[in-house]
C-alpha cells in the first residue's frame, strides 16, 4: 500500500491549527513517515494538487475561498475539518452577527469597497466533510487519531458526550460551584476539559453535542442567578453561525 498523500490547507483563521500539527514535535517524524505531506504552506515550500486527504483549517469568508474549497472538494478523497473555524465557523461568525455591511464599515471605513467578504461559513457548507478535529486550538492528539484511523481504515473516536465527563475524570470542582458559567454540559468533549482544568468555564469551542438539553441549561443558569444572555455571550464566541442557522 502506498502512503496516502496529505495536503494541509488554511482558510480564514489564525493559522494556529496548522501550528498545532507542527507542535506534535516528538510524533512529527512518525507522522511524515506514515503519510506523504505534499502541501502544507506553514511547513514546506512545495505545492501540490495531487492529494488523497485534505486537512482544512479556517472558515470560508471570501469568494476566492469558495473557489478554493470547492477545488479541494473535487480533488480530495477525504476531507478533515481541523479546528473551530473550519468545523463551526468559529470566531469568524461574529461578523455575521453585525451584518456584512456594518462589519465592513466598522473595520475598513471608507476603504470597505476594497474588501471582498461574504457571510462566514464552516467548510461543510461547501464540501462534504468526513471528519472533524474540533476545538480552538484543536487537540493535536485528536488530529493524530484521525490520521491514524484513516490509515487503518477505522472510524476515529471523537466523543459525542459533554465536557463534564472529562472534567469529572480530571477530578475538577464544577466551575458553577465556584460561581462561573460554563458551556461544558452541552459542549462536545475531547479537549480533556482544558478550560475547567485551569478553573475557567468552557466556552464551547468544540461545538455543541448532537442532542444538547438546551432547556435544562437555561434552568441551570437561572438556578445560579445567571441569564440566558450571559451564556449567549459565551455561546456566540464560537457558535454564532450555528445560532443564526437555528433562528
Amino acid at each position, binding site marked *: 500500500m502506498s502512503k496516502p498523500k496529505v495536503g494541509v490547507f488554511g482558510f480564514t483563521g489564525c493559522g494556529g491549527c496548522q501550528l498545532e500539527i507542527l507542535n506534535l514535535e516528538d*510524533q512529527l517524524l512518525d507522522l511524515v*513517515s506514515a503519510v506523504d505531506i505534499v502541501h502544507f504552506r506553514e511547513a514546506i515550500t512545495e505545492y501540490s494538487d495531487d492529494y488523497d486527504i485534505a486537512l482544512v483549517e479556517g472558515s470560508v469568508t471570501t469568494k476566492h475561498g469558495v473557489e478554493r474549497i470547492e477545488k479541494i472538494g473535487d480533488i480530495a478523497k477525504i476531507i478533515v475539518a481541523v479546528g473551530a473555524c473550519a468545523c463551526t465557523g468559529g470566531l469568524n461568525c461574529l461578523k455575521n452577527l453585525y451584518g456584512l455591511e456594518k462589519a465592513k464599515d466598522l473595520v475598513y471605513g471608507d476603504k470597505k469597497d476594497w474588501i471582498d467578504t461574504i457571510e462566514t461559513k464552516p467548510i461543510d457548507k461547501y464540501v462534504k466533510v468526513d471528519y472533524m478535529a474540533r476545538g480552538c486550538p484543536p487537540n493535536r492528539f485528536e488530529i493524530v487519531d484521525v490520521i491514524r484511523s484513516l490509515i487503518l481504515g477505522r472510524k476515529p473516536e471523537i466523543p459525542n*458526550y*459533554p465536557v463534564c*465527563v472529562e472534567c469529572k475524570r480530571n477530578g475538577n470542582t*464544577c466551575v458553577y460551584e465556584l460561581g462561573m458559567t460554563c458551556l461544558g454540559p452541552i459542549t462536545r468533549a475531547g479537549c480533556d476539559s482544558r478550560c475547567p482544568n485551569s478553573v475557567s468555564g468552557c466556552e464551547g469551542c468544540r461545538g455543541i453535542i448532537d442532542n*444538547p438539553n438546551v432547556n*435544562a441549561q437555561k434552568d441551570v443558569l437561572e438556578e445560579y442567578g445567571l441569564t440566558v444572555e450571559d451564556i449567549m455571550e459565551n455561546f456566540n464566541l464560537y457558535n454564532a453561525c450555528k445560532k443564526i442557522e437555528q433562528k
Partner: protein
Amino acid sequence: MQYKILKKNKYQDFVKGLIEDYNFIGPTKKDKSVHDFVPLNSIEELDTNYLKTTIPPAKKILFPPNEKLIEYEIGDEIKVKPVIESSETVLFGINAWDINGMNFLDKFFSKDFVDENYWDKRDKLTVIGMDTEPTENNFALSMDTEYATDGFDLYLHDLGDRYFVRVNTPKGNELVEKYVDFDDASENDFKDFDKYMDDYRAQFSNKVNIKSFYDNFEMIYNDEEFWKKIAKNCFSCGSCNLVCPTCFCFNVKDDLKLDLKTGEKTREWDSCMIPEYGLVAGGHNFRPNKENRLKQRYRCKLKTYFDKFGQYACVGCGRCIEACLAKINIAEDINSVKKEVNV
C-alpha cells in the same frame, strides 16, 4: 476485631510515622468547596475534617480514571506486556460510606472475573478510616453505610479527648504496635463509643425508604411517565456516574502509535448516562433516551446488584445529587416511589 484507645497527644506521632514510612494518601483542602485525597508529605497538609470530596478516594486510587492496561508491539509476532502499577499505600481518613463503596468495588472486581489491575493495588492498600460529617444530601444512614464493619485495617473514631480505635486486620495491628503506645479499650471507653455513635447517627438528616423502592421496583419499571418526569432536565453528562464510589463501568481504548507498530490499551471511566454507552455496531442504540438511561442507572444501583451481591450499588453518599446541575436527586426519587404506587 480488637478495640484500642489512641490518646490525642500520641496521634501526631502516629501519623508522622505513617507519612515517613509509606506512600501516604489523605484528605487536604482543594478549594473553597471541596477536599481532595492526594499523596501527602507532611502532617500539616492533612485535614481530616472535611465535608466533601468530588471523586471518591478509594475509587480514585484503585480504579483510576485513566489506566494503562497493556503495551503491545506488532512485528513478526505480537508481543503483549501487561502494565500493572502499584505500591504499598496508606489511605488515611476515608469515611465509612466510602469504605463501603470500596467494598462494593471489591466484589465487582472479583466476582465474575478477578481484575488484576484493581487487586494488585487493593492488596497493597492499608485503609485507615475516620468519620466525617455528612452533607445535607447524604443518606448513608438509610443505606446502612454510615458504619463500616469491614474493608479497613484501622478505624479511628474521635471521642473528643481520645480516639476509639477498631483494629480489623493483622496489618492494622502491626501499625498499632509500631509507632506509639495504644491502650486497651475499657468498659467506659465502649460506653462512650456507643454514645458517640448515637450522636453521630443523629447527624444524618436525609432519609430514604429504600426498602419500599426496592419492593416496588418492578411496578414502576414500565411506568414511562415516571422516568420521563425524573429525567426531564438530564443533560446526559455522566457526572452522576463519574463521581459515584460504586460506578465501575469503563471503556477500553486502543492507542496504536503512528509508527503503526507499538501501542497501548488504556481504560477510562465510562458512564451509562451518555448516549454512546448503549450504541453498538451498526448504529443501533439500546438506550436512546435519557429516561431509558436514568432507569438503567437506578436499576443497577438499587435493584440488580442488591440481588447479585446483597449490597446496593449505592452507599448514599449524595455525591451524584451534588454533582447534578439538573438537580436530579436520587434520594427524592427513591422516596417518590412510595407515593407514586401506594396511592
